[in-house]
């Protein structure tokens, strides 16, 4: 197991390295002089020169990259060009909101997708299966930003049950926060849930007719016990992969959902920064989100070793 983990970790290192170079180069791919850009349009040549030296932009690129990495390792993400506040502070204020939305979204995804997928697989070729397959086809075709608008029209404008946007205060009123969270989290979850339910169905079907499942049923286990202990356990690996790959979509989707519902998270921070041409913030957010994405995938890969010992062994033999 340790060997497996070490190998997988070693594979992740070049990926992180390349991704960080990509994010670093973002600022340098901009048309024009980054120092002039940071100084603003009416800056004097002297102040541009000062910024260039102050930011280390007169150094060769590899040196700048090393310095940048070293700053990040110390938790220093730079200062916002626009508001001059430390980026780590700006991001820190926004992380809880995005995290709250993402966790709620993922929970709703699992609650919708797993039962739908399992029922569709167990009742294969029945009217229920057929109905679920049309629901997922149509659900997959509904873009989240349209779904959000429809939900606001129905529940906020029409019925007046839920607020059309903004975040509550989860520390002071955790139950009240559910009202604020309901629409955005569901909007975020629906496309992911449709996708995951299809995948759950496929992977349950792969296991459902295997010999060991027949054996379990033959020895008199109840259907539910067979399903939970023998089918799901084996169908879990592709499902875990899908969930971990979903983190990317979850983060991308969060940007859109946050915009629709005026949710004060990383997505709205990043989009405002793009609008203000505040590249330091864009760079830091990209780095953070990509880092999280890589980390989650790594953890998912490691979890296969626990879920399915065959994978661990196959890795060791190679």
């Amino acid at each position, binding site marked *: 197991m340790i060997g497996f983990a070490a190998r997988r970790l070693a594979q992740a290192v070049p990926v992180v390295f390349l991704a960080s170079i*990509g994010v670093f180069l973002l600022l340098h791919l901009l048309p024009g002089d980054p120092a002039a850009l940071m100084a603003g349009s009416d800056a004097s040549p002297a102040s541009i020169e000062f910024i260039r030296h102050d930011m280390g932009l007169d150094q060769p690129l590899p040196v700048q990259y090393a310095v940048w990495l070293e700053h990040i390792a110390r938790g220093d993400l730079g200062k916002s060009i626009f508001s001059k506040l430390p980026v780590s502070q700006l991001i820190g204020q926004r992380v809880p909101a995005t995290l709250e939305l993402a966790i709620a979204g993922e929970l709703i995804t699992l609650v919708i997708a797993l039962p739908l997928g399992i029922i569709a697989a167990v009742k294969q070729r029945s009217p229920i299966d057929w109905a679920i397959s049309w629901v997922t086809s149509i659900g997959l075709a509904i873009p989240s930003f349209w779904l959000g608008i429809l939900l606001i029209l129905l529940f906020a404008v029409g019925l007046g049950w839920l607020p059309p946007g903004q975040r509550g205060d989860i520390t002071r009123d955790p139950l009240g926060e559910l009202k604020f969270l309901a629409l955005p989290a569901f909007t975020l979850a629906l496309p992911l849930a449709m996708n995951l339910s299809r995948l759950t169905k496929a992977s349950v079907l792969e296991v459902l007719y295997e010999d060991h499942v027949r054996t379990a049923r033959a020895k008199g286990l109840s259907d539910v016990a067979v399903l939970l202990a023998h089918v799901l356990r084996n169908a879990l690996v592709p499902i875990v992969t899908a969930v971990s790959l979903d983190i990317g979509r979850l983060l991308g989707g969060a940007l859109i959902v946050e915009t629709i519902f005026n949710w004060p998270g990383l997505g709205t921070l990043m989009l405002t920064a793009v609008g203000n041409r505040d590249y330091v913030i864009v760079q830091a957010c990209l780095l953070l989100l*990509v880092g999280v994405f890589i980390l989650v995938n790594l953890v998912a890969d490691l979890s296969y070793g626990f879920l399915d010992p065959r994978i661990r062994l196959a890795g060791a033999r190679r």
Partner: protein
Amino acid sequence: MATAAPSLVTPQVVRPGAWRSVSARSPLLQALSRTVQNPMGLVGALIVLILVLAAIFAPLITPYDPIEQHPGFELQPPSGQFWLGTDHLGRDLLSRIIFGSRSSMLVGVVAVGLGAALGIASGLAAGYMGGWVDAVLMRTFDALLSFPAILLGIGVVSVLGAGPLSVAYALAVATIPTFARLMRARVLSEREREYVAAARCIGARAGRIMWLHVLPNAIAPLLIQISLSMGFAVLAESALTFLGLGTQPPIPSWGGMLNESRAYLRTAPWFGVFPGLALALLLLGLNLLTDALRDALDPRRTNV
């Protein structure tokens, strides 16, 4: 590839039309006809066809100019004069929706065209050449895959500036890795086949074998991916335009219209409904088509 020649032994047993269906038609054509015979596939193909025709002939079928403003008719509900109502500037929504399909489709085609071409080429090279070419390309694509498409879009747009072309480039970059991985996997299994050895024996060079022999034999699964990527690109284009990063006003686009509608949800709900409906319809068509293609081309998945 061996074409099934009519049997020499018992030619009279074969019914006149029967042998034709098994002989000259390529596997690709057979798969395409199977796709359209599947009811879901037919519905999908028809939806996509109708929307593409509407986009091409937009100037002929739209009742109004999509950017013409009608003062005094702002935020009108659907009526005989404006079938789907008007927006906040008094522009006809139906005309804007029909013209808006053009920007989605254009970005989709450019993005998938570029992404597929580059992905297939690099996948071929990586799979056929192996060694350091393979290692460098695949590690680069691993890193690319660690950027969710929307984030990649934001990164590219913040460098190139907002606009449909920036979005198309970003989405092209986002689709390259999937095509490359798929192509590489196909090449790895195809390169061991006899026809490749035969081509090498008669002295064909690597480039010729890759393009003329391996590629045509590996193309079928790529079709599924093209259809899938098209849906992804159309959706991502609208999402990025919704965020204000893609097609800029006054040029009509579905994502842009949905974004504009958010300020008028209380007074003009139809403004937020119809552009999304058009987008959902196109996505549904593409998804159904993708599923049918997958059923037709990948026999293992037919019962799923």
